[in-house]
């Protein structure tokens, strides 16, 4: 069995600051991490490997240093990985990204057929959750999103049964393989790497594929292949409301509470 995990390297969003004067992002010094959702996708793949036996391959698109996240995955038990890196990919929006990743998955599949493609529910730098279903459409395979657990897998029938988290409950779905699954954080707890595996993974030489290595129509990649364009970036508008600063006039908590509760009562919320 062959499993592929799409693992993205993202800036640690909690560390990004905005230049208050220029209104631009300050990215310098911001550490990069493996997208947390994708790590849960990896864990789900590794659990299938433990249970049923499988080869787990990582696919990452990003700059050269993104090999870090592949090595991390290898230290946890992934068998191999490939980094897609090319200037032609820069500026890809979700449409172009799903195209490039889908083409790379096709190529990986030529060597050994793929049964399950795992994605994270979403990448924390964009929060779009669009790339997974997009890859699924392009590969024309079964797609099941928001997976919180794989219940069972039948190697002979080539089906999996998974649980999906929706707004009002859990849906249990049976899907034919090959299938693309996007995984939620609740699915599992991520394992830790054993020290020897960690040391071993540092030596792993990650193969890098450029646009030439994958069959790609360059018109569908990068900025050229991205229909969405950023028109402008600006600081969020400040809501224009007259804030009453209670503490400008009163300092005693009990008095402050009296005033606030008056307002709550006036709003009819004390009934």
């Amino acid at each position, binding site marked *: 069995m062959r499993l592929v995990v799409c693992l993205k390297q993202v800036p640690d969003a909690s560390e990004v600051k905005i230049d208050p004067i220029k209104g631009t992002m300050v990215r310098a010094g911001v550490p990069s991490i493996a997208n947390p959702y994708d790590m849960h996708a990896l864990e789900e793949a590794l659990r299938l490997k433990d249970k049923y036996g499988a080869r787990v391959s990582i696919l990452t698109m990003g700059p050269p240093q993104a090999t870090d996240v592949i090595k991390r995955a290898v230290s946890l038990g992934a068998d191999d990985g490939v980094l897609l890196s090319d200037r032609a990919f820069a500026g890809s929006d979700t*449409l172009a990204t799903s195209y490039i990743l889908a083409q790379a998955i096709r190529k990986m599949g030529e060597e050994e057929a793929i049964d399950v493609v795992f994605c994270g529910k979403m990448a924390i730098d964009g929060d779009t959750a*669009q790339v997974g279903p997009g890859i699924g459409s392009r590969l024309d395979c079964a797609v099941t*999103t928001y997976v919180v657990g794989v219940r069972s897998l039948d190697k002979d029938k080539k089906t999996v049964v998974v649980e999906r988290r929706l707004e009002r409950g859990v849906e249990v779905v049976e899907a034919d393989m090959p299938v693309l699954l996007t995984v939620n954080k609740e699915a599992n707890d991520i394992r830790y790497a054993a020290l020897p595996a960690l040391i071993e993974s540092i030596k792993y030489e990650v193969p890098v594929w450029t646009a030439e290595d994958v069959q790609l129509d360059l018109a569908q990649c990068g900025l050229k292949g991205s229909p969405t364009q950023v028109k402008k970036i600006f600081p969020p508008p400040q809501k224009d409301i007259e804030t*009453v600063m209670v503490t400008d006039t009163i300092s005693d908590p009990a008095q402050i509470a*009296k005033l606030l509760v008056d307002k709550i009562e006036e709003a009819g919320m004390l009934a």
Partner: protein
Amino acid sequence: MSQPAVWILIEQNDGVIADVSWELMGKGRELADDLGGEVAGILVGHNIKDQAKEAFYYGADKVYVIDDPTLEYYRTQAYAHAISDIAKKHKPEIFLMAATSLGRDLSGAIATPLGAGLTADCTVLEIDPETKLLHQTRPAFGGNIMATIYCQIARPQMASVRPRLLPIPERDEKRTGTVIEEKTSLQETDIKTRRVEFIPDEGATVNIEDAECVVAGGRGIGNADNLKVIEELANALGGTVGCSRPLVDAGILPHAHQVGMSGHTIRPKLYIGAGISGAIHHVVGMEGADLTIVINKDPDAALLRVADYGVVGNLFDIVPAITKEIKARKGA
């Protein structure tokens, strides 16, 4: 040439239409009027045809219906095929969906066969008066920045919008329109996923989106034990506990309580926020509140600026004082 069409996905779950469909319909009407075009609802499912007329009451001119047993419940492949086929045929200018589980999944799956540009989680949608392009604004990466995105050539211009961000327009039963029935080309045997069962959440789960009163705590509460300060005030008010994302990430509260862009959008009559800084990701989820009270020890905290009443102080002094005052008045 036919007039430009704005399409709205009418989201239904087990035959029940989600309110967000009408929120989007109201926005669709506005955009279509700005474009000099029409609004069409897209209603997909099984035995749902009769509900099409509801869409007219909220502003649709047309409803395309695909009613088929294979579409009884949402499946990515089945819905994406059916809808992208009719979109290829009728070529809408704009296509909006809700940023719900279903809408996010479907929009991602149909943008690729259509080659469309798609922007997730927009907070503002407007037609540029000069270019007539759809300007889609969303909070972007890292928090304190907004980006306006547009799509010059590819069509449709697709966007998803959070539930409860937009008001539901007035329902007008006098409005009518045309129902157009379409077909799907997929057979059950072509579809690669099947629902085994659906396990609904127990009734007791929080539904923060419908709460009239939300008392929210942020990283300022420090640790899980201190959450009781927030809970006590929420209880005194008969309200629901909300929170910012760090509390969910830290496992202090489940996601059902998270307010904001990757949490829930709320429109309560009263929102009280304590120990929350006011990142745009949080603010977009709560700015629809009628009365907003904010407590923060930092006078520069952004959330104070969106408050009706701001208190600069220690939440561990102020919040219990409010709880006590409420209990005193209610007891009297």
